[in-house]
């Protein structure tokens, strides 16, 4: 079932594009414009090195809010879940298969991003690979949980889409995924503190340059909280039809 879902994911141009190709394009564009030179904006870090964790956060956010939400709510609205319900397959299997696929695709998007960073821009990496992977996994799962909640509570595909978009764009713009939060006006910075993605960006960016977990307890706490809350709520709101 997981393999089947993976094939379907890749056949869906929009989801494959946004998680795999779009961040890469963005990176190339970004690299072409600013090059990979140290800038004061990133505290002496080189622009691209600093932007890769931000783009990774973007992939997570898009995968969580768009892919997860849209796939699940479309399946329900079209009666795909209804069909599955006539078979002995358990809802858990359906959810887990979906989860594995979105996670694998997000990881693939991240991998492409890093590969491009290394091959084209000779990106430097100062963190601990294992830590970064752990942070990435935590961030992804907590965002997928939000996606599953949305899919569970929104009555139609359309409404799920609208809500996902309303959440997605401000988060992408204001969380620091594209620009550092410090560049934004003070009032906007306050807003960004309420956006879950901000914590993903902070965590990944910190781990990327080798900061210890201890410096990011708040980020980890928020994301873990979201994950637990999201899992419970989405398990409760799961509906076959």
């Amino acid at each position: 079932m997981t393999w089947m879902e993976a094939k379907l994911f890749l056949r869906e141009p929009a989801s494959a594009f946004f998680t795999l190709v779009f961040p890469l394009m963005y990176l190339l564009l970004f690299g072409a414009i600013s090059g990979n030179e140290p800038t004061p904006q990133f505290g002496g870090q080189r622009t691209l090195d600093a932007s890769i964790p931000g783009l990774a956060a973007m992939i997570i956010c898009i995968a969580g809010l768009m892919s997860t939400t849209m796939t699940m709510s479309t399946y329900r609205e079209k009666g795909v879940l209804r069909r599955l319900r006539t078979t002995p397959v358990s809802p858990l299997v359906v959810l887990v298969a979906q989860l594995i696929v979105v996670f694998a695709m997000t990881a693939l998007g991240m991998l492409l991003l890093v590969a491009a960073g290394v091959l084209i821009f000779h990106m430097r990496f100062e963190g601990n690979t294992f830590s970064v992977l752990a942070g990435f996994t935590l961030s992804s799962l907590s965002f997928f949980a939000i996606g599953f909640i949305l899919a569970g509570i929104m009555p139609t595909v359309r409404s799920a889409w609208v809500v996902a978009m309303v959440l997605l764009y401000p988060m992408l713009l204001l969380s620091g995924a594209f620009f550092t939060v410090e560049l934004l006006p003070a009032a906007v910075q306050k807003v960004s503190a309420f956006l879950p993605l901000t914590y993903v960006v902070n965590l990944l960016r910190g781990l990327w340059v080798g900061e210890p977990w201890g410096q990011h307890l708040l980020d980890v706490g928020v994301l873990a909280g979201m994950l637990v809350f999201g899992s419970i709520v989405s398990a409760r709101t799961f509906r076959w039809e």
Partner: protein
Amino acid sequence: MDTVVQVEGLRKVYGATVAVDEVSFEVREGEIFGMVGPNGAGKTTTIECLEGLRKPDRGLVRVLGVDPQRDGQILRERTGMQLQQSNLPERMRVWEALDLYASFYSKAADWKELLRQLGLEEKRNALFSKLSGGQKQRLFIALALLPDPQLVFLDELTTGLDPQARHAIWDLVRDIRTRGKTVLLTTHFMEEAERLCDRVAILDHGRIVALDTPAALIRGLGVEERVVFNLDGALPAGFEEALSGAVRLEIQGAQVTVHGKVGRKVSVVSEVVSLLTAQAVPFHGLRTEQPTLEDVFLSLTGRAMRE
């Protein structure tokens, strides 16, 4: 013969609407049992209660000897279900759907064989979204047959299909029965029920108003058969009186229609023909109109169209 489905006093209410009320029937092993009725008569609700997809408010339901609410898992392993509104992901290919669904059952039938039997071999690699209505329904039948089920539920199988596709599907359903499986179907096409079903339950406003074989329903309701012919001249005086009892004559210009009850000693047609011959009345274009289940249905549920 074993009872495959047993329903007693089934009732299901949605808000203020009583969808199904005091419905009781049994389905025997190896038969094609049909539920017919206008839209909103409670057919789908009933079948969904049997499938375990809905919880009855009252009444006893046993399918293959188990309670669909309590032992849904057992039921899903041993029955095939085709739902009125359901779909597969648009970009899933035919063989992938069969392969995937086969993986859900502990003892799945060979899907390649089903593909062949349902005439979907050419469409093996087609995307679900590219299939025609009839092909989609055939795929759904294939999915329903995957668990090698004892009982197959088919809900509004041929709705929205063209006549060719519909006839092809009917053949497939008869085929399912010859493999020893029991079929429970719903339809709002009377012709479908009449041609396909061994027994038919007519539902209206959530209740069963009649239940029997199609032929018995037609006989039992005393519906009329009609003999229609065109006169070349005028009808001789005393023609109507010469016909024995219980017939009614209707003359529209040159066309004469004789109505008579089904099941009389001498059939209306032989009586009319012998009388026409005896009185040497020139006529042409004689035909009979046999009552159908549709006539029974309309006389039971009323003629007014309703949604």
